């Protein structure tokens, strides 16, 4: 039985809607979801980065996942829509509250920088407009080597017909350059009626040009590797692991420090992750 994850549920301030979103996701069989805060900084004003929601405030008792006995796991995620390189400040203190970091580049230079340099987990491919740049093999392969994944979200396609065309166009061109690896499919759902079940999303992946195995991976294995990548990113130099509940930090041996220039072995997305 694979573990299915939906790593993009849009955050709204309406708590009951978030609650029903999470309950629907649990009913459909997703073991892990991530609540996404989208942050779009404009050049003029200085805006604050939204703070992550405490899961306990949002929902008292997490519902059990369909087909399993464990409750659903809810993570926090931040997406920074970048139109300028100053928008994403690496190692900013505010990012530490989030479990997953994502970036949505809007220009080719930013895309290249995000693939090769930035410490992010996910690079979002925009679905609401025709991509102004093409995907080149070099940065895409660099991202794949580092363990960064590309994300395509499908709920815009469900809402609107023109967005459907953009989604499919952008997704197909992405699949061509990355050959179907390191891709995740997720809903950017705002209402509980916009989520779809994992097998339906797998089938949507076939529409985007993925093979059968790649499409299923896009909902299960690759998502799991993203979550693990995010966890290792939080480790300081890959060695120290601070637990939130304990006061001391316990050290994890075995991983070389990240500042030697090579990513630790745990960071790279492997095809078979146990």
């Amino acid at each position, binding site marked *: 039985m694979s573990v299915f994850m939906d790593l993009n549920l849009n955050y709204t301030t309406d708590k009951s809607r978030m609650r029903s979103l999470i309950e*629907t996701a649990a009913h459909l069989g997703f073991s892990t979801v991530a609540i996404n805060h989208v942050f779009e900084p404009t050049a003029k004003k200085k805006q604050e980065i939204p703070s992550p929601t405490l899961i306990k405030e949002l929902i008292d008792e997490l519902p*059990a996942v*369909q087909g399993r006995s464990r409750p659903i796991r809810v993570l926090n995620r931040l997406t920074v829509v970048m139109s300028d390189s100053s928008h994403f400040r690496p190692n900013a203190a505010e990012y530490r509250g989030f479990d997953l970091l994502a970036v949505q580049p809007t220009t080719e230079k930013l895309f290249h920088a995000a693939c090769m340099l930035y410490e992010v987990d996910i690079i979002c491919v925009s679905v609401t407009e025709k991509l102004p740049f093409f995907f080149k093999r070099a940065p895409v392969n660099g991202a794949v080597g580092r363990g960064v994944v590309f994300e395509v979200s*499908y709920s815009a396609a*469900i809402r609107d017909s023109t967005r459907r065309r953009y989604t499919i166009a952008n997704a197909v061109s992405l699949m061509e350059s990355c050959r179907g690896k390191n891709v995740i499919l997720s809903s950017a759902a705002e209402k509980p009626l916009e989520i*779809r079940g994992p*097998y339906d999303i797998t*089938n949507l992946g*076939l529409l985007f040009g993925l093979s059968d195995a790649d499409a299923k991976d896009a909902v299960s294995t690759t998502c799991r590797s993203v979550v693990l990548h995010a966890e290792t990113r939080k480790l300081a130099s890959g060695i120290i692991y601070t637990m939130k509940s304990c006061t001391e930090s316990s050290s994890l041996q075995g991983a070389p420090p990240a500042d030697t220039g090579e990513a630790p072995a745990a960071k790279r997305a492997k095809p078979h992750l146990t």
Partner: protein
Amino acid sequence: MCPSCAVCLNCACPKLFLTAPFLVGRYLLCEVIVPDRRHLLLLDDRAVAASVREAVARVHGDYGAALCSSRFSGYRSINWAPTVLSLSSVKYLNAHTGIVFLRFPKRCYKLLWSALPFITSIEARGQSIACFLNCLHVGGTIRTCQKFLIRYNTQQLHRMLPKCKNEEEKQQVKKSILKCTLTKGNRKGLDFPSDDDED
């Protein structure tokens, strides 16, 4: 029971037809998920079939619409009374639980299945019910889908058990769990209380 018709008849269909390659199909077991359970009771199979066909036409155009309506004809009108058969792709609908069996031809079922996530509402009895379809299982025959459905409903009953508000409901749920079997000749041997606690 002939796997290609929705009703249990004493078919005069010779065994030859059952093994014919063009008769195979894929049966999709789907669940209609609505925010308000009372809207489920308004559903009927024609409404679901119409919305499936409309979604396929919307997403895949004329090609999809043609694939959806390709049915084996010809010998049927000779052997069966045409009024009994429905040529739509909805083979079974349970309005209480929202379970639907859809039938697609085998060579193109993935394409037609990919149009199902784009269904956002179903028009039934003049009202538009906002909902979506969640595919639970794909089987080659209705019987395999039924077997899966029995297991799935048993799981749902188990999920309902901790949510029961009083002892009487608990006893009802427990009895239903014990009664879950696939009996010969019946469509489903499962009979569970239409509880409002069911999620």
